[in-house]
């Protein structure tokens, strides 16, 4: 598989070699050839993409080059509005929906010259970690099509890994950008909470939802992030931090307790390589780590159920059974427990802030296991079988609770050639610093 890198393609497009029309045409041909095996797309907007491509070629010929996203064929998760196209959320509940306007971040990407060539498949309403429960069928991992692409932004990561787009926009409520990025061997960024606008995005749990860029490499992710984040419009150099100046904190207790042994080996090898390159590492603590999953559940479940209450009553049969059952479960959480979880959220946020006090970022694996097989319900870790969903959320959901920015980048493979992801977590409201650090790590790993 050859991925498309915005960083690599942008200078070529600026020089007119290839033209945007040719780049888009070839991408659409690849989608037609490859997508049936991986089911990454729900909608392919061929005619509109080609019309946009011709317009952007004409602009460039007249000396108007919009920047590195000029003519880049991108996708958006089908939870995000694109004017004139359905936003299905991979659910029969939204079978009659057509978006009347672009989501705010789509407007920004189009203004930067990006072309939306299609909308990607996902776990229904983003409510799952495997992208299997979709009204449009399961997404398959391009690395091994018997395996899940991760989720919920599984179609976005699969399309990037298969070279079917130059980047994508996903959403992340418990890890839904970072999990599929790790499973497919791509890069995904969840910025600080509320940094990018969620207007025009179907919510899952509004106090945990984030949107963010996904791509083949850190530079491409950064270029997409810059286009979407208006407050970073001042000229910013996309340069890597100097490894010798960097300090990484590793929260071992709880976070590294439950790991597939191959994932553990790749993570420890990666940390050793970063140390040899000059980075300093130290162990850090999140004292209430054992409460992460319970705090997450008591916030996410009722927020999701509140959004779906009307359609759960009106047309429960329109949901896939696993998603319907989880939505129904959320209706039983008591208000007092939601309030207790919000107190816990403050405790955890302070503890992550404290863990970051003397380091530049926290480092963890993104996923405790490699991509599970399609239909796999449990994962055996050591002597215990654990539910796949709980395992896949284990290392990512904390940073949705606390709002810290986090990025996943590839850090090797298992002997079965399944990708392993390195997750880096930065200080709140300092996403560009995290990107600088991630660029440095990418060049070493």
């Amino acid at each position, binding site marked *: 598989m050859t991925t498309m890198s915005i960083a690599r393609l942008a200078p070529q497009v600026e020089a007119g070699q290839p033209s945007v029309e040719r780049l888009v045409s070839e991408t659409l041909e690849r989608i037609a050839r490859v997508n049936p095996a991986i089911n990454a797309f729900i909608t392919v907007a061929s005619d509109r993409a080609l019309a946009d491509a011709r317009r952007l070629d004409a602009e460039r010929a007249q000396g108007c080059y919009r920047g590195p996203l000029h003519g880049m064929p991108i996708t958006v998760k089908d939870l995000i509005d694109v004017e004139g196209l359905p936003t299905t959320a991979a659910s029969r509940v939204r079978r009659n929906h057509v978006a009347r306007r672009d989501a705010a971040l789509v407007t920004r990407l189009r203004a930067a010259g990006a072309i939306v060539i299609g909308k990607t498949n996902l776990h229904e309403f983003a409510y799952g970690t495997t992208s299997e429960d979709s009204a449009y069928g399961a997404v398959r991992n391009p690395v091994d099509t018997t395996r899940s692409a991760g989720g919920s932004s599984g179609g976005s990561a699969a399309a990037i890994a298969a070279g079917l787009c130059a980047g994508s926009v996903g959403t992340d409520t418990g890890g839904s950008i970072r999990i599929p990025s790790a499973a497919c061997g791509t890069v995904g960024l969840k910025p600080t909470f509320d940094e990018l606008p969620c207007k025009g995005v179907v919510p899952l749990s509004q106090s945990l939802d984030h949107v963010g860029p996904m791509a083949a490499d850190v530079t491409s992710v950064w270029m997409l992030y810059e286009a979407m984040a208006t407050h970073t419009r001042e000229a910013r150099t996309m340069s890597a931090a100097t490894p010798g100046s960097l300090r990484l904190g590793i929260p071992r207790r709880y976070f590294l307790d439950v790991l597939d042994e191959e994932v553990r080996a790749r993570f420890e090898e990666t940390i050793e390589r970063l140390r040899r390159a000059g980075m300093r590492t130290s162990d850090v603590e999140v004292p*209430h780590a*054992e*409460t992460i*999953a*319970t*705090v997450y*559940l*008591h916030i996410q*479940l009722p927020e999701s159920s509140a959004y779906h209450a009307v359609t759960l009553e009106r047309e429960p049969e329109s949901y896939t*059974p696993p998603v319907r*059952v*989880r939505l*129904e*479960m959320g209706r*039983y*959480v*008591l208000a007092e*427990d939601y309030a*207790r*979880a919000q*107190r*816990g959220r403050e*405790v955890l946020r302070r503890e992550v802030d404290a863990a970051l006090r003397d380091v530049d970022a926290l480092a963890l694996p993104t996923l405790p296991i490699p991509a599970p097989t399609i239909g796999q319900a449990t994962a055996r870790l050591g002597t215990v079988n654990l539910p796949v969903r709980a395992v896949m959320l284990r290392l990512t959901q904390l940073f949705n609770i606390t709002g810290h920015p986090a990025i996943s980048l590839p850090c090797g493979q298992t002997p079965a050639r399944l990708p392993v992801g390195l997750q880096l977590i930065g200080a709140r409201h300092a996403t560009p610093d995290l990107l600088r650090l991630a660029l440095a790590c990418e060049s070493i790993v």
Partner: protein
Amino acid sequence: MPDDKVRPRDVTAWLEDAVADAERRGLPELKPLLENLAQATALLRAADWNEDAAA
């Protein structure tokens, strides 16, 4: 002093009520999920950040 006539509103009582309600609504498949949720709720209520109004 607790009133003997008032049923406690603890996790066990919540689970019994929730399972009974789910079965009444024709959703017996919710029972194992609610049992797992009850364990999580017990952990949440035992967390040391929770306050005691008498303290």
